[in-house]
C-alpha cells in the first residue's frame, strides 16, 4: 500500500515482510520499510505502534520472526547490535542507554577508545569528544561523569556517540523528546549536513512540527502494521494524524486554549513564600488553587524541575515557607509530600519513575500502598481492580496487568505512572513533562484526563518544554528565568510570544 511516487533512486535499505511478536503482543506484522540515501525518513505512529521494535529488529537487538533485510542490494542477516554497527548502522535508542558513571568522553568513544602505547590516550579522547559535541553547539566539560548532567544533555551525548564514527545509516528513536527548541534546531542543522553528505537517516518523533520540518518521507505504522509510506509533501498534517490514529479526532483541542474555558479555581491548595534551596532555585513565591493548572514557563535550566523537586520534598527547602490548605508544612522527603496529598510524575521516567521489572499492577499501586504502609496491604483483588480500572480509563496498551512495565512502550509507561498517582487520589499533581514521548491521540487523552481531574478540584503544576502546551492548558503561568520567578501571566492574556517576551526581559 505504498502511495509515495516510486522514487527513481534505489533504496539503500529495504525491510520486507517483517514480523515480530512478544509473548502476548504482536508488535510487528508484515511491515515493509525502505530507506534512501540522502533522505530523512520519519516513522510515525501511536505509542506501541511498533516503531522502536522495527528499529530494534533492524539493529539486531531483537531477532525477527519473519522477513528480509536488504542493504545495498544484498540480503543481510543482522543478529547482534555489533553486526549492525559493522554494516554501518548507528543508532540512538529511545531510552538513553549510556553508562552514567563514566565520563562524557568515555561514553562517546566506549568500544573504540583511542590508544597510545597500549594505553588509553585521554588527551586525544577528550579533545575528540569536545570537538564532536561542539558540532552540536554543546560546550561542556567532557571529563565529568555523564549523570552529573541533565537528561537533555545526556540525550545530546547519545547522539554524539552515534555520530562518532562514519555511518551510512543513522537511526534516531525519539532523540528530541527532552530537548528544547534551540537544541532541536541545532540537531536538525546537523542532520541536514549529514543528509547532504548522503547519509540515510531514520527518525522517530511524536512532534508533528518536527516531522514536517526535517523529513522527506514518512512511514506510518498502526498497531504493528504498515499503514503506508508517503512523501512528506503529499501528506498534510490532518491526514497524517488520521492515518496514525485510524479515526477522526478532535484536533482543535490541540490548538485551542482549554483551561481558560474552565470553572473558576477554588481555595488555595499550596502556597510558598521565598522558597529556595541553595544551588537550585531561590525566592520562589507560588500559589496553586484547587481546580487550577499552574504552568511553569521557562527555558531548559531555568529551574522548572528544581522547583518541582522542592515542592515534592526531594530536595529540602533551606529558606522560605510552604503551606498547604492554610497550614504550614515542611517536607523532608517525597513521603511527607505524598502524605499532604501531592503526587509527582518526574521527567526522567526510567530513573525516577518506573520500577521496570515489576508488573504494571504493582507499579500502579506502589505509591498508594506506600502511603498505606506495610500492614494495610491491599488485597490482590483490590490491586487487580485498581490496576484494571486505570488501564481501561487511561487506555494503557498492555497484554494484561501482569506485564512488566519495562516492556511497555514509552508512552504507555508514562500513562501507568500517571495512574500510580491518580490511584492515591492526590490534592495536587506535579506533572514534569507528562507528555514527553506521547503520541498525539494519547496526549489529548492524558490532558483530557488531567483537566477533568482539575475540574473535580485537583490542583496541578504543569511543566513542559513545549511552551505551546503550557499556554494551552494553564490557568496561570509562572515564568522562570535563571532559577528565579520573574513574573506571572494569566491564561487570557498569555500566548507563547508573551512568555518568551517576558523571559527575554521584556516585562516582568
Amino acid at each position, binding site marked *: 500500500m505504498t502511495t509515495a511516487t516510486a522514487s527513481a533512486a534505489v533504496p539503500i535499505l529495504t525491510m520486507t515482510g517483517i514480523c515480530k511478536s512478544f509473548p502476548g503482543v504482536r508488535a510487528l506484522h508484515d511491515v515493509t520499510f525502505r530507506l534512501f540515501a540522502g533522505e530523512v525518513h520519519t516513522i510515525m505512529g501511536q505509542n506501541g505502534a511498533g516503531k522502536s521494535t522495527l528499529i530494534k529488529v533492524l539493529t539486531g537487538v*531483537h531477532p525477527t520472526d519473519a522477513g528480509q533485510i536488504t542493504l545495498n542490494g544484498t540480503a543481510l542477516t543482522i543478529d547482534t547490535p555489533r553486526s549492525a554497527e559493522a554494516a554501518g548502522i548507528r543508532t540512538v535508542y529511545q531510552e538513553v542507554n549510556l553508562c552514567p558513571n563514566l565520563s562524557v568522553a568515555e561514553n562517546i568513544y566506549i568500544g573504540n577508545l583511542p590508544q597510545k602505547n597500549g594505553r588509553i590516550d585521554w588527551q586525544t579522547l577528550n579533545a575528540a569528544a569536545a570537538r564532536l559535541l561542539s558540532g552540536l553547539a554543546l560546550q561542556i566539560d567532557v571529563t565529568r561523569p555523564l549523570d552529573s548532567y541533565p537528561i537533555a544533555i545526556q540525550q545530546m551525548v547519545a547522539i554524539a556517540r552515534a555520530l562518532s564514527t562514519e555511518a551510512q545509516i543513522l537511526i534516531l528513536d525519539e532523540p528530541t523528546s527532552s530537548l528544547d527548541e534551540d537544541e532541536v534546531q541545532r540537531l536538525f542543522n546537523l542532520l541536514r549536513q549529514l543528509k547532504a553528505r548522503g547519509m540515510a537517516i531514520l527518525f522517530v518523533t511524536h512532534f508533528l512540527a518536527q516531522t514536517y520540518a526535517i523529513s522527506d518521507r514518512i512511514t506510518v505504522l498502526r498497531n504493528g502494521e504498515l499503514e503506508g509510506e508517503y512523501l512528506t509533501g503529499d501528506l498534510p498534517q490532518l491526514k497524517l494524524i488520521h492515518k496514525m490514529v485510524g479515526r477522526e479526532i478532535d484536533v482543535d483541542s490541540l490548538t485551542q486554549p482549554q483551561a481558560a474555558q474552565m470553572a473558576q479555581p477554588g481555595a488555595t491548595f499550596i502556597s510558598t513564600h521565598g522558597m529556595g534551596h541553595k544551588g537550585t532555585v531561590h525566592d520562589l513565591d507560588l500559589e496553586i488553587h484547587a481546580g487550577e493548572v499552574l504552568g511553569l514557563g521557562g527555558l531548559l535550566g531555568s529551574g522548572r524541575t528544581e522547583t518541582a523537586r522542592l515542592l515534592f520534598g526531594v530536595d529540602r527547602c533551606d529558606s522560605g515557607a510552604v503551606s498547604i490548605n492554610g497550614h504550614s508544612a515542611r517536607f523532608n522527603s517525597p*513521603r511527607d509530600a505524598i502524605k499532604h496529598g501531592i503526587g509527582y510524575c518526574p521527567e526522567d521516567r526510567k530513573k525516577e519513575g518506573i520500577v*521496570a521489572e*515489576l508488573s504494571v499492577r504493582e507499579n500502579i499501586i506502589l505509591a498508594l500502598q*506506600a502511603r498505606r*504502609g506495610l*500492614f494495610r496491604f491491599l488485597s490482590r483483588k483490590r490491586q487487580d481492580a485498581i490496576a484494571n480500572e486505570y488501564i481501561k480509563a487511561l487506555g494503557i496498551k498492555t497484554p494484561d496487568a501482569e506485564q512488566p512495565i519495562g516492556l511497555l512502550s514509552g508512552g504507555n509507561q508514562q500513562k501507568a505512572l500517571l495512574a500510580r498517582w491518580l490511584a492515591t487520589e492526590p490534592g495536587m499533581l506535579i506533572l514534569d513533562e507528562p507528555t514527553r514521548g506521547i503520541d498525539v491521540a494519547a496526549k489529548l487523552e492524558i490532558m483530557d484526563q488531567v483537566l477533568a481531574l482539575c475540574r473535580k478540584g485537583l490542583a496541578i503544576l504543569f511543566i513542559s518544554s513545549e511552551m505551546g502546551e503550557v499556554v494551552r492548558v494553564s490557568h496561570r503561568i509562572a515564568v522562570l528565568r535563571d532559577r528565579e520567578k520573574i513574573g506571572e501571566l494569566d491564561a487570557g492574556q498569555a500566548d507563547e510570544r508573551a512568555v518568551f517576551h517576558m523571559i527575554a526581559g521584556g516585562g516582568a
Partner: protein
Amino acid sequence: MNTSRLAAMARHPLALPLIALIVLLVVNRAFNATFFHIESKDGHLFGSLIDILNRASPLALVALGMTPVIATRGVDVSVGAVVAICAAVAAVLIGGQMHVENGVEVYVSNVPMPLAILAALAVGLICGLWNGTLVSVVGMQPIIATLILMVAGRGIAQLLTSGQIITIYYQPYFFLGAGYLFGLPFSLFIVAAVLLLLWLLTQRTALGLFITAIGINPVASYFAGVKARAITLWVFGFCGLTAAMAGLMISSNVKSADGNNAGLLMELDAILAVTLGGTSLGGGKFSLIGTVIGALIIQTLTYTTWSLGVPPEANLVVKAVVVFIVCVTQSDQLRQWLVRKPLEA
C-alpha cells in the same frame, strides 16, 4: 506432557535449583544404597537425609536472613562474625556446671538460659542494625559497611571468649541444636518458623513488594513514597538476628563457642545459597524457598564429597565446579537457549 508446559516449567525460577538438588541426591543414592533410608530410634528419625537437613539448618537461617538484604541490592559479609559473637555471648553467659545433688544430676547456668538466649539474639540484632545504619543512614556501600564488622567481629568474639574455646556444660541448652521434637531435629522447626515468618511478612504485608521495588529501582521507590531507609535498616537488622540464631544453634550443637572458627566463611556460603536459589545479586525479585533449597544444595554437596571420600583438599574444588555449573545454567541466555526461545535483550 506437551512442550509448552515443559518449557514453562523449565523457565520457573525454582526449576534449576530443584533439579540440581535432585541430581545431587541421586548421585548420593548411586554410591550409597542406604542413602534414602530413614529409621526411627526411640521415636527419633535418623538417616542421611535427616542429617543433611539438620546440618543445613544454621546455613539456611543465615541465608534466609541474607535473602531480603540481597534483594534490596545489599550484601552482608559480617554474618559469619556475628555468628561467632552471638555464640560467644551465649556461651559466656551460660557457661554451666553439673552438680549431683541427692544422686540427681542438676545443671546450673551462670545466668538463666532464656536470658542468655535473649541477650545473644539482642546482640545479633544490634550488629545487624549497626550494619543497616551504616548502609541506609551513613550511605556506605553494603559490602564495605559490613566488611567492618566482619573484621572487627572476630576480634570482639575472641575478646568475649578471652581467645579460648569456651565449653558449655549445661544440658538443657543442647536441645536447641541437637534436640528432637515430634521425631525431628528441633533445629528444623526453628528454620521452618523463620521461613514462615518471613513468608508471611513478605507475602501478607507489602514488605515483599517494597523490598523488590527498592532492589530494582531505589530512586523510583523513594519517589513513590516507599520508606526505603527504614526498610533497609530493618532488613539488615533481621539478617543479624538470624545470624544470632545460627550462632546459638551451632554453639548448642558443638557444646562450645570458638571465637576464631565459629561461622567461619559462612557469609560466603550464605550468599551462595541465596544465589543458587535464584535471587539475583543485583537485587529485585527474591525467593525464600529457593534460598532454603540453595542451602540444602550446599550441605548435600559437603555431605557428598565427604561420603565419596574426596580428599579434603579437593573438596573445595568440587564445590566450586558444582556451583559453577548451577550458576551457568541459571543464566538467562542459556535458559532461553535451552527452551528454544530467541534471545531478547
